């Protein structure tokens, strides 16, 4: 068997284009898939024009709010391209350089301030988008809606906080600064205390009854206004979101993406190589010659699977080593990687052998290998919650019949301690090795026929 293996490696070396394609293509796919899965969508590029005068402040009543850093807040969420004029902003959108333009007009702060006057004006900001690409347009709309909701929230919170302070002043009294002057506010509590201290000195009669009414009112007002303050701040943000941000910068390729990349590589290398090299035995007319006493069918199949595992292991380890240049990998789990790659490789090899034995011709085999492996691989990547329950069950059954999903599970488990159960994945793979091995053995009976 080792001589056959040596022969297949020699043949592989003799066809450098095929070898390079066989290795380069899956690695390319793997890296692309890995990136696509792990990278959060990039911040959209947005042209940003802030015409609001730098010293303009939002004020509530007679109080100015401190600068809330609008520019920084916006540019933290989108990639800002600062422009000088509205025309320039529009041009940037039209040229496709940016997805949208966001313009804060000069009168924005005045209008916000007018909200607390008898003649309120609605503050407006301008958004320029190109709706040439519906997907992009939706993305931009969502982003900008979110931005504006956030801006509204910030302003509402500030207003609520200021309102609360006023309320406190009315309740407890204190100093109010207005136009550089300080006015002392007595407050309800103090007023009540003064009135209450006056009461005993009053003779019973109409005046005393009136004072009693004032006292009752101040108590009522005090108690009710005290509940107003938290109510006000609640109003600004009725629903509190308890969001936990674990880490601001996720690694470019996380464990799962690495497992996906590795499994993709392994799957394509092994399935194509095993199926192709089995079909080549037939194409070269060597199959009858070999199986007339020189090699048994089982030995030939085993040799092909070993070939796939050997080459697949080499390519996958090479790819992981390459990825390790960019992403920290748990090299301490190397032993588990080997186990996962070997078991996955064997199962994928058995499937490749079955495929090769059934399709028989090299061309048909390559086509079929792609046609089977690619959709199964993508199905295996669909998270169970992403589709309906019935469809999800169906996908689960289909993907369980092909070694890609369990191989992915095994790789994820081997790469990351938080991954699925390695034992279960290995058992699944073992079952598939047996099943596809039998299928290949069976298909090989008709292999040499025309």
């Amino acid at each position, binding site marked *: 068997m080792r001589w056959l293996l040596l022969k297949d490696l*020699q043949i592989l070396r003799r066809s450098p284009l095929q070898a390079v394609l066989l290795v380069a293509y899956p690695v390319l796919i793997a890296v692309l898939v890995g990136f696509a899965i792990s990278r959060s969508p990039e911040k959209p590029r947005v042209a940003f024009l802030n015409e609001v005068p730098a010293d303009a402040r939002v004020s509530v009543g007679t109080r100015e709010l401190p600068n809330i850093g609008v520019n920084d807040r916006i540019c933290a969420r989108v990639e800002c391209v600062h422009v000088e004029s509205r025309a320039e902003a529009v041009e940037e959108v039209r040229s496709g350089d940016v997805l949208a333009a966001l313009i804060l007009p000069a009168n924005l702060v005045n209008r916000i301030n007018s909200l607390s006057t008898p003649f309120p004006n609605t503050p407006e900001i301008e958004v320029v988008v190109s709706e040439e690409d519906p997907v992009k347009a939706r993305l931009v709309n969502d982003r900008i809606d979110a931005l504006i909701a956030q801006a509204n929230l910030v302003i509402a919170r500030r207003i609520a906080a200021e309102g609360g302070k006023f309320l406190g002043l009315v309740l407890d009294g204190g100093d109010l600064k207005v136009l550089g002057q300080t006015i002392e506010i007595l407050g309800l509590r103090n007023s009540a205390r003064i009135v209450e201290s006056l009461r005993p000195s009053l003779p019973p009669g109409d005046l005393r009854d009136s004072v009693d009414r004032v006292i009752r009112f101040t108590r009522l007002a005090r108690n009710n206004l005290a509940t107003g303050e938290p109510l006000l701040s609640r109003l600004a943000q009725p629903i509190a979101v308890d969001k936990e941000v674990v880490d601001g910068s996720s690694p470019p390729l996380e464990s799962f993406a690495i497992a996906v990349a590795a499994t993709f590589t392994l799957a394509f290398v092994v399935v194509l190589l095993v199926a192709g090299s089995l079909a080549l035995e037939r194409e070269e007319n060597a199959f009858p010659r070999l199986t007339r006493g020189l090699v048994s069918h089982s030995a030939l199949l085993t040799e092909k699977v070993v070939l796939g595992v050997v080459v697949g292991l080499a390519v996958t380890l090479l790819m992981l080593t390459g990825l390790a240049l960019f992403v920290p990998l748990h090299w301490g789990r190397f032993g588990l990687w080997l186990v996962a790659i070997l078991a996955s490789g064997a199962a994928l090899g058995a499937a490749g052998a079955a495929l090769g034995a059934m399709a028989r011709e090299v061309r048909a085999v390559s086509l079929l290998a792609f046609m089977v492996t690619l959709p199964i691989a993508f199905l295996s990547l669909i998270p169970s919650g992403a589709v309906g329950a019935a469809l999800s069950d169906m996908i689960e059954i289909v993907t369980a019949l092909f070694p890609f999903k369990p191989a992915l599970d095994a790789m994820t488990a081997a790469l990351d301690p938080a991954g699925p159960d390695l034992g279960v994945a290995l058992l699944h793979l073992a079952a598939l090795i047996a099943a596809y091995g039998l299928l290949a053995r069976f298909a090989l009976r008709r292999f040499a026929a025309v």
Partner: protein
Amino acid sequence: MHNNLRRLSRIAFASVEAGAGIGTAVIEARKLVKRFGAREALKGVDFEASTGELVAVIGPNGAGKTTLLSILAGISKADGGEVHVPEGEVGWVPQQAALYRRLTVEENLLLFARLERHADPGASAEEMLELTGLGERRGEVVARLSGGNQQRINIAIGLLARPSVLLLDEPSVGLDPRQRARLWEFVSALAETNGTTVIFSTHDIQEAERYGGRLLVLADGEALFDGSPDGLLEAVRREASEAADRDFETAFVAFLHHRGH
């Protein structure tokens, strides 16, 4: 040259089965039937060959020659009849070259010598390189060789099996006259000195007549004649009298015509 070949064949086929003298049938087929769908490729053919015999199987295209040989070789199964062949000792040289075209000449020979579990695969490969006269091209990838040269290696690989029965399906196709002569010299030597039974098919009637000690004529899956070249000549003269004084090939064609083929 001849001595050289004899020496080679002695090395390669040192052990001849004891007791299997000339005249004993080593390979035997009774009432062989082979069907491909509705078509009957063999319609109850009887055949046997003894130790050291050289049998030529001749007949028109589609007569069933390849089918018969591949059943004897154990590559395909008969649908009816019986086959008795010495287990594991039947060498087979297919009509279509069975080689790894992306391996070199030497790598092919070495691979099969190793698979045949030769004690010294290198030496066996050398013998075959010498026999085929391709020693100088040992390092060349088979795909780059001419068709005839590929056929030489195809035959050489079949010979590596050191069989007691050797089946050759149109072995001389594509060989130049010199190489043909070498092939038949070698094959005859195998039969004479090692008692190897050689069964070959050919479309070259003269070759069949010259090297085949016995001729089997197949047409449409039926055996029309089984006997010595002289016997066939006699039958041809008898049945196709109008072509009796022409050359053997013309007479043979006339004979087939008379038999309705």
